[in-house]
């Protein structure tokens, strides 16, 4: 502290000079001999850029360019692209208030709904297939696409601001921002009705708010401090509420806060009391756990408030939940089923009836396999008496009363009424699928195959043991007792011998989700009468019941987790996390065969590889610093090291936390899952560029108070070479962007040779590539 008098103070505070505060958050052993430059000694251009006016000009230019690049030809293509199938549809449901189910939290989708409502979308178009035309269906899709484009464009100035707030010079901040600005993957992702633009925007705001919050750390519990703490929490909640991956942002703020608290706990630094620590701890618990959770929940609350009508998501939910949805007809008219009732069964996914008719399976199929030649059991789409089955008990029943109700896990037989035969399955391959079992029927009075006619009614969603089996709402699987197969059907139709009806077979995977059936109707009771109004307690209720919000939320959240983990099917454009930073593989979003146009999600390869280089250099610097310090050497000035470890280190945590968990996931993974990490790596690349260009930084940057010990300040001086480097690099980046742009914007169409020339890496699987006539 002896050199205090000599220090150049950036924000001279009169009280500061009299402060005799011993400790400081900054390390004790400061290099007093550091170079600290005068802001006035810099070149004119640099002084201009470092000033607020210059900064505003730069950020405005970047933002304007970002809007231009993201809105350019946003109306093209006028067709449904890639996952717009899902998210466009969900937006439509918000407008029609129909309940739907999705693995992602609702915020971003609600925003799309809002955007759609704002531009006059009536929600009638359901975005069924990739390639459906918006024009013919009269969908105001440009308005909906404008939302992610705005958010994606605003991400660029936020990135700029993060770097600026972190104490880097304007050129460095512009460098990081341009890595996002000129990135084809970010642009492609922001121009379509997809969740990622919102996710990335909120995530960058979270980082920005946290950096701001840290800068106020010496002014603890002031208004600014609280504001930025709560802002961090708020944006964090928005990130999480936009897409399920957003939870990683929550984790990475959590990690940073742990480091922070650990530091505050350290008695050697400040000598704080435990009370001081507890107040900090509680403030963070409130601001970064409780408050974000309230925000997150409130989005769900709105979600449930908006979606009040019965819709496609009903069937995912429990019966109690379904009762809260208006017009949920399944539940409104469901009845208990008694033994000897005559029923019609319907498959939940394909809506066909369980059907049988006297025709038999042919002895031999086309592929040479043989059948049992039993009576055909098929799935039929229309009402017919051949769909009538009587449910026969395998246990003794009381004469009357509720003892005759069919319950969960009861073993039953199903009697086909018109032919008086019992449903049966056995170890014979089904007509279309050799791996699945054939379903047929067997004469009722022939007891030789009795065991093969036994089926267990297994109600869905782990219903309790004695749950009554109900029509409409009683979703169940029919499990064959001896062979454990589940009755299943799939949209493939049988040949002419079965009148092109749908095949029904036994699926050996009892956990198959599509093996769910329900009872469409109770045709008659055991006396062949219309069933009387037998369940007084089930009087149809017209008014939807209410249900506790938290119960609803927990049910939905659990389902979301389960389904998210269940997304394991493979996809042609799925790729492993190791490929992502190197931009090894992209995703084909949309193609148009006539004009040879395509949208292929792929990053600006120069930008991405710069980020990878930046990351590796940073890790190299950190490792070298560790090793050197281990050998008692000290090559990096303390102020620079502080920046590298504390600020860029935080970016590295952001990068790692948004990236590493994907290695442990078994679900489908796509390169766009890397975009949040890519943004973090752009920040790191900026910091590394600064380190390479100059060993000066703006320091200190945190807001000082009377208690803060003053430190020698210095100013970033990247010099003219910094400006030249960034300008030159930006130009190269932009040219690469333009070169790949036809794949990003999906226009203009490309000839085969052009496609080949755009295929910078052989692993990019572009469409319409010219065939090599013979290889070299």
């Amino acid at each position, binding site marked *: 502290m002896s050199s205090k008098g000599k220090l150049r103070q950036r924000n001279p505070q009169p009280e500061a000079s009299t402060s005799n505060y011993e400790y400081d958050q900054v390390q004790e052993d400061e290099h007093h001999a550091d170079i600290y430059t005068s802001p006035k000694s810099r070149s004119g251009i640099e002084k201009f850029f470092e000033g607020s006016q210059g900064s505003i000009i730069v950020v405005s230019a970047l933002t304007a360019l970002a809007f231009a690049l993201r809105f350019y030809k946003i109306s093209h293509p006028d067709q449904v692209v890639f996952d717009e199938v899902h998210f466009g549809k969900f937006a439509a449901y918000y407008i029609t208030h129909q309940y739907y189910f999705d693995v992602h939290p609702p915020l971003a989708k609600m925003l799309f709904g809002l955007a759609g409502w704002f531009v006059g979308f009536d929600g009638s178009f359901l975005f069924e297939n990739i390639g459906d035309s918006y024009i013919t269906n009269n969908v105001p899709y440009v308005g909906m696409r404008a939302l992610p484009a705005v958010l994606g464009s605003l991400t660029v100035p936020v990135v700029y601001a993060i770097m600026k707030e972190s104490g880097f010079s304007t050129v460095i901040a512009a460098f990081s921002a341009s890595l996002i600005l000129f990135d084809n993957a970010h642009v492609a992702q922001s121009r379509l009705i997809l969740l990622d633009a919102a996710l990335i925007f909120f995530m960058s705001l979270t980082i920005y708010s946290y950096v701001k919050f840290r800068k106020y750390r010496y002014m603890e519990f002031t208004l600014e401090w609280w504001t930025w703490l709560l802002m961090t929490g708020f944006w964090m909640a928005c990130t999480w509420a936009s897409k399920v991956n957003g939870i990683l942002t929550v984790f990475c703020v959590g990690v940073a806060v742990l480091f922070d608290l650990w530091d505050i706990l350290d008695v050697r630094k400040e000598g704080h009391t435990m009370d001081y620590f507890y107040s900090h701890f509680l403030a963070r618990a409130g601001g970064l756990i409780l408050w974000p959770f309230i925000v997150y929940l409130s989005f769900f609350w709105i979600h449930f408030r908006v979606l009040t009508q019965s819709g496609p998501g009903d069937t995912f939910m429990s019966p109690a939940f379904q009762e809260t949805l208006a017009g949920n007809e399944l539940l409104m008219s469901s009845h208990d089923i008694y033994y000897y009732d005559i029923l019609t069964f319907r498959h939940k996914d394909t809506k066909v009836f369980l059907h049988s008719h006297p025709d038999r399976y042919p002895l031999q199929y086309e*592929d040479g396999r043989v059948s049992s030649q039993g009576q055909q059991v098929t799935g039929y789409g229309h009402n017919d008496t051949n769909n009538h089955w009587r449910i026969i008990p395998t246990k003794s029943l009381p004469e009357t009363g509720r003892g005759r109700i069919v319950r969960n896990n009861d073993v039953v037989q199903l009697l086909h009424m018109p032919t008086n035969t019992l449903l049966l399955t056995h170890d014979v391959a089904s007509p*279309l699928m*050799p791996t699945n079992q054939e379903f047929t029927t067997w004469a009722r009075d022939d007891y030789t195959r009795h065991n093969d006619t036994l089926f267990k009614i297994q109600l869905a969603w782990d219903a309790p043991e004695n749950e009554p089996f109900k029509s409409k709402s009683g979703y169940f699987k029919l499990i064959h007792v001896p062979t454990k197969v589940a009755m299943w059907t799939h949209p493939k139709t049988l040949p002419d011998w079965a009148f092109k009806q749908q095949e029904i077979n036994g699926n050996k995977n009892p956990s198959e989700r599509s093996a769910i059936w329900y009872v469409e109707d109770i045709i008659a009771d055991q006396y062949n009468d219309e069933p009387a109004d037998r369940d007084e307690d089930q009087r149809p209720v017209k008014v939807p019941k209410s249900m506790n919000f938290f119960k609803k939320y927990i049910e939905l959240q659990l389902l979301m987790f389960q389904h998210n983990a269940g997304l394991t099917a493979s996809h*042609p454009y799925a790729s492993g996390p190791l490929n992502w930073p190197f931009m090894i593989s992209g995703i084909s979003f949309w193609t148009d065969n006539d004009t040879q146009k395509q949208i292929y999600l792929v990053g600006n390869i120069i930008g991405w590889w710069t980020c990878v280089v930046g990351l590796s250099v940073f890790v190299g610097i950190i490792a070298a610093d560790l090793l050197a310090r281990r050998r008692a050497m000290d090559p990096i000035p303390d102020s620079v090291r502080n920046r590298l470890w504390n600020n860029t280190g935080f970016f590295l945590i952001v990068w790692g936390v948004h990236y590493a968990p994907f290695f*442990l996931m078994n679900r489908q993974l796509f390169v766009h899952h890397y975009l949040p990490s890519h943004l973090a790596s752009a920040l790191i690349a900026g910091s590394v560029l600064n380190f390479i260009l100059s060993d000066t930084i703006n320091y200190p940057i945190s807001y000082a108070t009377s208690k803060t010990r003053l430190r020698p300040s210095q100013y970033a001086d990247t010099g003219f070479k910094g400006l030249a480097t960034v300008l030159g690099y930006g130009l190269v980046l932009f040219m690469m962007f333009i070169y790949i742009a036809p794949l990003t914007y999906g226009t203009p169409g490309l000839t085969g040779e052009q496609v080949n020339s755009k295929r910078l890496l052989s692993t990019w699987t572009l469409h319409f590539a010219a065939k090599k006539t013979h290889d070299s």
Partner: protein
Amino acid sequence: MNRPPAVAIDFGTPDSPNSSSFEFEEVGYPDPYHQHQHQYDPESYGGRANEETLPLHYMSEEKARRRVRAGAAAGNGSDFDGGAAVSGNEKEQFEYQEYDDAGKDVYNKPKPYNGQRISSGRGPSHPLPPPTTITEFLLQNTEVIVPVVYTLLSCWTRFHRIGASNTVVWDEAHFGKFGSHYLKREFYFDVHPPLGKMLVGLAGLLSGYDGSFEFKSGEVYPDTVPYVAMRVMLATFGVLMVPLAWFTSVELGMSQWACHLTTLMVLLDVGWLCISRFILLDSMLLFFTFLTVFCLTRFHNEQFEPFSIDWWVWLFFTGISIGCVTSVKMIGLFVTALVGVYTVEDLWDKFGDTRLTVRQQFNHWAARVVCLIVVPVLVFMASFKIHFLILNHSGPGDSQMSSLFQANLEGNDFYKNPLDVAFGSRVTLKNMGWGGGLLHSHVQSYPVGSNQQQVTCYHYKDNNNEWNILPAWNDKQHDPEGPLRYLKDGDIIRLSHVPTGRNLHSHTVTAPVSKLNYEVSGYGNLTVGDNHDYWQVEIVDDTKRGSVGQVHSLTTRMRFKHVALGCYLRAANAVLPQWGFKQIEVSCDKENNRKDAHTYWNVESHWNDRLPAGDMKLYKSPFLRDFWHLNVAMMTSNNALIPDPDKEDILASKPFDWPFLHLGLRMCGWGDNQIKYYLMGTPVVWWGSTISLGVALLTFAVYILRWQRKYNDMDAREWDHFLYVGKIAFFGWAFHYVPFLIMGRVTYLHHYLPTLYFAVLMFGHVLDHFIFSSRRFSTRTKAIVFGVLVSILVATFWWFSGVAFGIDGPVNEHWGLKWRETWNIYN
């Protein structure tokens, strides 16, 4: 009783002027002990006992067992009770020639030490006076007697009723069979490395078994199989776990109490006991795991004197032990990871030690690389070399290996195949990628994509692997009587599957697993087909003749290019789902990657009546190639062992079921007349050890938080020791547990058995830390706690010993075994 000996530490410092007897310095004790000490032995401390307490090497009483020799400088009889335990152990390292008893008071004044060491730096101690009573003898030799007693007890538990069940129990069906293959010298294939199974074979050889038994599960052993002798030999490995546990605890510097407890837990766990009593690999795996940990701790205690003989010996043995444990089961890689992390941390510490010269640093690195990487790899490869040397006859595992390797096995007549392949030949095609199989097809069709007949790669030989080489549809049709037309580079052929008549076909449908490739299927029949059935032969080279234009069986490496699509037939260890019977996917790769061995094929079996037998002289298949090939095949099969959702495997369990012993495992049939074995642990050992892990983590967290607040609970040395033992136990446990959570393959209860060891060490450590080494409790309290714990242990062991010794009669008559609802021990 438990009074500590005078403890001294070797710093290798020169004699200080006032050092009367030897250059070791005494360790100062905290006051109670200090006072205590003086009452006994004032002279030996001279006037300098209080002069300095060593700053670094302060230890609490029995921790002094680490790194230091027992001073026992005052060797008069009264001082033996506590200290002798240590000095007994040191006896073997005693430098006898240094000792001169000519007329001196040798017991008080050993000769000055001359600076030469013969062993670990536990400097010379002098011999003890001959024991006069039995008690004295016992006390003098505790360090030997205790492990001997434990070993004898262990022999009893491991060998008691070992032959009670005369049937093939559980996985004896596998490992016994593999042992038989060694005796019959027939090549077989298995997912585990060969060392353990070779030892099974050796046990069979030594006990006079001829390898003729099939080892069918549950079958009664015939008289020709000396199964009891074999089980005894393998159980010996299990016996040795107990003394190893004892010595490891000693090396970890635990107190006597904790050492006894740890050893007793290893002795009395019914899980370890049960698994050691059969013809299985687990006893060897456990033994080598224990041995590795022991070697590591032993090596750690040599660290203060690098590059001494003992240091080298134990470093080297650690490497050998790693090699052995990984050669028994790949699970050994987990304990290797523990050694690796220990070494990295150690080297990091050394790196920060600026007193070491660059040369010393380099030597440290080189020593680790040689002993911990090179040596284990050599041991691992040596086990495969021996494996290949023994198994030189054709056997059931042939088809996992390359065609050349098979051709060199006795009893295989590939080399008699006709040499030149011609149109009309019936062949099997072998993929030449690492772990590749035979091109295969079967009547089942793809449930996805084109729904045409499946084409796969398969490792077992049946006639579904046979293909006819036929000319293209538009070519002159093959005439069985016409002139022979040999297969040449560039020929366009059609491959017709012999049993089903379908043609090898590819089209623009995406393949089921490798989505970027085209599907390969069987299509059409002998008369129906299209131009998507055409494949062009591209010869890569001939391993024997170099580059030739004609296809020879076995030696020619070739690729098949799909004429219409330009893609290449490829099989790259991608496993099909259950509908493809977990066989390897065959697809057509759009990328033309010339270097990709997975697109290389060779003709393996070749039948053509019109051609003469080849009778080729073959090159030996190089060892490294076979070694690598077999390892890739093992990995692929291991990864294919994923749980099958179609079948509920009642034996399998999830890792979360293990630490609290959620369920056990029936090892054999459960009939009333059978002898029944139930694989489960002694509940108190499993539960206690798991709880101790949580307690240790919590303790660590509390200490580190207090440390951040500047509370010093322990001095640096105690803290280091607390951390060291804790790290060995915790990371050992985590490395053996966490991978099971991540890996997709099916897991069983016995996978936790190596893991359990580290939990048990942690249990000992936690008890040691809180009770037995605590200064808060009196010896009496410690003795009571110890007694209670031991009786609980023994009682539970006795209560559950039946599950390992074998339950006779109806199991429901054995009351009180079902402590958790989920144990399916009763019918």
